[in-house]
């Protein structure tokens, strides 16, 4: 078996193009450790302290709106003297990154979010969101947004540097946890839009997949644009047509994946899947229906990310998914791992093979779980996921998300040294949705059921 050090060194050599020549403390904390999820506690804290302190100072000094925000909160870099002081660093609600103005002001909004100077970017009158994003790209920036169906997207302006760090981080995170199964000579299937053709972060960040393995197929050649998704939500004829087309397209994709599985099975190749679980779930349902089973064993691995809603009314747990993978593709559960990340951040919580808890990369990424007053909740308690991101160089990555998580000081199953999140993360949606009707339904159903909730 390959030594871990050798394994990571080899990986590093494939990821060379993402490595910064003048690393920040955060980047060092990402490149240097052999096992990013198992750095001795004290050492990890040193890395983290340096990373976050550095990056906080950077944004304080070079980002005007964040600077003002810190002033409002009476905090400056001098107040940060230990990891305990991280709680003083003002957090930004994720909603903030959705609150963009329309029209050409959108370009200014992106520029203001961006920390530091920008090269000159010429915006034409006719440029819409995508047009503006492209102009930023031509200037060397990577502006990505969240996928998803919500009316408003989350836009994040990344410098090439920050984006490279995100790519390096995702590759290292997944491959570390898959030790020792990764090698270059693998055939991969990306269950995402094509990274080079999309501006959706979750898709684009998978670009590194092409660097670390030999052959990559992409499931969705075309991008699902935000517009298209919105149109598909409509009740009108156009919406129906689009949904129908999507359905047909999906069926074709599924057939292609199944053929690919057969071929690799016959040739005895190693395979890997990365991406959204729902496509693979459809594949497995089809296989199951047709009574076709594979037995890839340790020759297969799967890394999923987000999107656990399979159909509109159906969610599956990562556990059920793993079981299905084992049953139908014959890939053992420890080689089926889920990643948890988001468009606003560059850190990846990765499941350990032993317990499938989500491990926090705690050398450059500081996680807090907070209640509605912004106070930390105790380990094991539910709260909102918040993070300080030592790799976010081009925008202040001190963010509270809407996701609901539980954090534990250490993994209940494996020996690794990092804190973990419980495997199932829930989008915390406040009680916003409790409109009048919802309230009515609740009261009525409580009355009838006789229960008291």
């Amino acid at each position: 078996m390959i030594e871990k050090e050798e394994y990571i060194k080899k990986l590093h050599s494939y990821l060379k193009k993402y490595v910064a020549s003048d690393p920040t403390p955060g980047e060092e904390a990402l490149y240097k450790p052999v096992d990013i999820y198992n750095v001795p506690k004290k050492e990890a804290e040193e890395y983290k302290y340096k990373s976050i302190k550095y990056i906080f100072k950077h944004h304080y000094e070079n980002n005007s709106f964040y600077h003002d925000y810190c002033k409002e909160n009476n905090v400056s870099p001098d107040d940060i003297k230990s990891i305990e002081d991280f709680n003083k660093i003002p957090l930004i609600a994720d909603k903030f990154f959705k609150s963009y103005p329309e029209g050409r002001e959108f370009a200014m909004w992106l520029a203001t979010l961006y920390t530091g100077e920008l090269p000159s970017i010429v915006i034409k009158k006719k440029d819409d969101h995508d047009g503006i994003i492209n102009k930023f790209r031509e200037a060397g920036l990577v502006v990505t947004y969240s996928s998803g169906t919500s009316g408003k997207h989350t836009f994040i302006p990344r410098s090439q540097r920050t984006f490279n760090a995100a790519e390096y981080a995702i590759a290292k995170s997944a491959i570390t946890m898959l030790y020792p199964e990764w090698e270059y000579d693998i055939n991969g299937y990306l269950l995402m839009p094509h990274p080079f053709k999309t501006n959706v972060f979750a898709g684009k960040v998978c670009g590194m997949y092409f660097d670390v393995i030999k052959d990559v197929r992409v499931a969705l050649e075309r991008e699902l644009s935000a517009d298209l998704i919105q149109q598909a939500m409509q009740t009108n004829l156009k919406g129906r047509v689009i949904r129908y087309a999507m359905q047909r397209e999906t069926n074709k994709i599924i057939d292609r994946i199944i053929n690919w599985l057969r071929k690799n099975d016959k040739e005895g190749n190693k395979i890997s899947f990365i991406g959204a679980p729902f496509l693979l779930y459809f594949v497995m349902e089809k296989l199951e229906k047709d009574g076709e089973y594979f037995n890839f064993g340790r020759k297969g691995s799967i890394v999923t990310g987000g999107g656990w809603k399979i159909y509109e009314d159906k969610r599956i747990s990562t556990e059920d998914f793993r079981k299905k993978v084992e049953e139908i593709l014959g890939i053992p559960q420890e080689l089926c791992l889920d990643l948890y990340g988001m468009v606003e951040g560059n850190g990846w919580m990765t499941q350990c093979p032993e317990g499938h808890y989500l491990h926090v990369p705690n050398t450059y990424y500081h996680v807090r779980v907070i209640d509605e007053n912004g106070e930390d909740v105790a380990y094991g308690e539910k709260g909102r996921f918040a993070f300080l991101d030592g790799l976010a160089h081009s925008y202040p990555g001190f963010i509270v998300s809407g996701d609901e998580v539980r954090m534990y000081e250490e993994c209940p199953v494996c020996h690794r040294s990092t804190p973990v999140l419980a495997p199932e993360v829930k989008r915390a949606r406040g009680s916003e949705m409790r409109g009048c009707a919802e309230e009515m339904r609740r009261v009525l159903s409580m009355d009838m059921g006789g229960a008291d909730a």
Partner: protein
Amino acid sequence: MLREWKEREYIPPKNMVKLFVKGSFELSKVMLKNFTKLKKVRQEKVIYRPPKRMYEIPEYKPGMKVVRSDEKYLRPTLFCNPYAKEIIALANHLGAFEKEPYEYANDVFEFVKRNVILQIVPIDGVVATLKRGYGSCIHKISLFIALCRAAGIKARYKLYALTVIDQWYDTFINVDPIMREWYDAMGYFMLHGEGEAYVDGKWVVADVGPTPERQVASGIPITKFGDDSIGIWADAIPGGIMRTESLPLGMGFLSKLMMNISPGSIARMNNNVINMYEKGKKMLEEMGGEEEYMKKMGGGMKMPTMKLEKKGIIFE
């Protein structure tokens, strides 16, 4: 006439009909199954005093301006008559034809959101709602729309069925099978929604349903004109969102029917809302106002202010 109905979107969209039919079936099933319980609940008396109206209705004077147009999204639709005297008077009072469209729509939004208390009552027209001072979110949306249309601002409904949007019920409802059945059956009838006004070339969403006090009492942000109530979209099924010019026919009848299943429950629920309103009001007083609340809201969930910078951007 049918064509006109269709054109004005009085005919409920197909998926709404589907929901209602399926819902009726589910509901009768559960009702039969839980007959005795239902009987007991129905006999229960709950004391309920409707809230007082919080505002005066301005006086109508002949010659007050109103936009009468037969254009889509501007004309009267079911339960929503923008030409009623009371509506015209209020529209003028709120500054229609004086303010910029966005400003006016925003003021209408604030008026309806803040002053009309949420109470579940059968669907009726906008004048009744205005005179009463309370109504369901559907009533409030209609009032918002009528006031916009009276001033010549296009406005429409954005409705969705709730069955499609709840995820959290796993924790609360799923535990008890009977409860779940009820809950699910009810869901087919429960439409929730927002209004939308067409200003400055785009549709702007208006979450007029909850008063700020209620939002405070449940610890959620106070929505402004243009704020979506987050989390809803993400869970609406494709085709689940209905944007229509009008409420559908049959809604008034259906809503009466629903209210009659268990009037006591409705009263209890309305009492809850009033209590929540009072609680939120007190919280706001203690906290020192809405701005303070929004600042404190979620502690870390604060929003920095942003002065836009141009940096290296050149506009051609």
